[in-house]
């Protein structure tokens, strides 16, 4: 019996030839990702327990992103503390404002994600990085402290569900629609504790960025990780960003899966997930008349350059509807600059949208776009829980970047395909 890519990566990182689902292992961790919200508690814990030295400072990557540019004194103090600590520990990978970005967009963009590696991040959407063939999962602050202190972390080897995605997407349908459709089918705990391995003709066709959108939302089905076997696109993407060597591991053809999920995407329409769960997906043609107050384009799910291109193509020559507001947040500084060079930011601003600096801000109801009671937002983000983007009496509708743009133009949830 063969192994899945997840089992192979975990086996190599605990010095074994093979591991099986259900086994408890201590795995060596190649990259530890820290952001502003979850890191200060870890720093305090380490100090309190006398664990004064980070085991491998060169494996730590820090990017304040949630409440930056700092929204208040408390959040400024948190980043100041992390900055001091990083300096004490000799951690050089610190992405300061201006070179910063939303962690899950920045980490792969800056070449920190390599196929075959283990990555943990104190953020639930760390599952994003499986798109490059890494085992990558979200953890809390205590796990973060433990990993910083020892360079390793305990895991139960997960069972894997294989998602075979066949067919080709219609014009105007994107990978966000695919993952929302999957979560709608299996539910927000449909892959609880499992590795979600995505494969098939659709995955082969998708760009690396579009694959990231799919793996990003594995956690919204309860998954431990999302993962995609690396191919030539993956290798090219990584080699363009780092000279570090890496080993490409892929699932064996006789690997064992706990379940296989098949979907043909040929007839898939753009999907909108209604409040208050990502699994409340409906085809855009069945949405009805839903008036919207705010459109949000950004986040670790859909704030990358391809997402901005999709939205800009739709918005070119149109205006944000009267009474409606649109916020565009390129996910990293490099994406911001690229979008600016391509004239995308002009298109958004001319349409009456506003463009902000990279931040997670509004996605989690932190700052830079909070919703009032009774307001509705169509958002390219990943969660629409009660209170997620502000007031617990606001509503969030999740969709792809094209649907967000079309909805901004019409002031209600709209089908992007008529603008293409």
């Amino acid at each position, binding site marked *: 019996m063969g192994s899945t890519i997840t089992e192979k990566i975990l086996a190599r990182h605990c010095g074994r030839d093979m591991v099986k689902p259900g086994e408890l292992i201590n795995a060596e961790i190649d990259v530890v990702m820290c952001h502003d919200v979850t890191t200060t508690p870890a720093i305090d814990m380490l100090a309190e*327990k006398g*664990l004064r030295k980070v085991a491998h400072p060169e494996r730590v990557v820090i990017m304040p992103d949630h409440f930056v540019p700092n929204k208040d004194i*408390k959040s400024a103090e948190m980043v100041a503390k992390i900055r001091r600590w990083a300096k004490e520990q000799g951690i050089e990978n610190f992405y300061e404002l201006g070179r910063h970005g939303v962690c899950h967009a920045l980490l792969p963009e800056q070449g920190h994600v390599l196929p075959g590696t283990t990555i943990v991040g104190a953020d639930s959407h760390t599952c994003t990085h499986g798109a490059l063939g890494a085992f990558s999962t979200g953890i*809390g602050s205590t796990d973060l402290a433990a990993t910083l*202190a020892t360079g390793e972390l305990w895991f139960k080897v997960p069972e894997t569900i294989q998602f075979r995605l066949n067919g080709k997407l219609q014009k105007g349908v994107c990978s966000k629609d695919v993952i929302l459709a999957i979560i709608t089918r299996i539910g927000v705990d449909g892959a609880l504790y499992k590795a979600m391995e995505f494969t098939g003709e659709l995955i082969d066709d998708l760009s690396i960025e579009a694959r990231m959108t799919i793996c990003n939302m594995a956690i919204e089905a309860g998954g431990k990780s999302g993962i995609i076997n690396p191919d030539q696109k993956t290798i090219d993407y990584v080699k363009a960003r780092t000279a570090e060597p890496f080993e490409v591991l892929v699932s064996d053809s006789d690997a064992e899966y706990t379940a296989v999920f098949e979907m043909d995407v040929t007839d898939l329409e753009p999907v909108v997930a209604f409040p208050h769960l990502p699994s409340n997906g409906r085809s855009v043609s069945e949405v009805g008349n839903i008036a919207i107050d705010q459109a949000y384009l950004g986040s670790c799910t859909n704030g990358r350059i391809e997402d901005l291109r999709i939205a800009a193509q739709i918005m070119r020559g149109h205006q944000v509807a009267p009474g409606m507001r649109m916020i565009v947040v390129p996910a990293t500084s490099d994406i911001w600059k690229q979008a600016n060079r391509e004239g995308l930011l002009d298109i958004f601003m001319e349409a009456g949208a506003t463009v902000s600096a990279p931040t997670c801000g509004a996605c*989690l109801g932190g700052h830079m776009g909070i919703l009032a009671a009774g307001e509705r937002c169509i958002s390219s983000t990943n969660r629409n829980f009660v209170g997620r983007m502000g007031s617990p009496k606001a509503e969030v509708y999740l969709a792809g970047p094209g649907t967000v743009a079309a909805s901004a133009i019409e002031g209600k949830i709209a089908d992007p395909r008529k603008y293409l």
Partner: protein
Amino acid sequence: MKGFAHSYPRAHINTDEIIPARYLNIDQENDLAEHAMEDIDPDFVKNIRKGDIIVAGEDFGCGSSREHAVWALRGAGVRAVIADTFARIFYRNCINNGFLAVECRNVSEKIQTGDELEIDVKGGEIRNLTQNEEYTFLPIPEFAQEIIDAGGLLNYIARKVN
């Protein structure tokens, strides 16, 4: 251990509801505790007594990895959470904090707010002293129990490292 139940039988109570992100510029347990569960139940903090137990439906603690959710509940006085199932990261965070999370299927429909419960962790049994019922659960894995007994993952590691 004994405590009184507070029943929230809904599924998918997520960490955004347990402690909203607008309070994530706070990292101290006592301060977080003032806002525990406030978007679900504005009276939660007022009604909870030290040692009480939350009883919830499936997938408790889904969403964000914020450990602040565990700290907010513990800071508010909650001694344990019993749920039909738990989301993965929240469950890990509970173990790592030495905070008791008991997975016991279908129990959320049976236990009512105000019921007095006794949890036998090692024996894998919840006794409902009010309704005179017993519910069994799979005991917590030995490795996780060692972490809990050590008072959390960091204590466990500090002992090995120092």
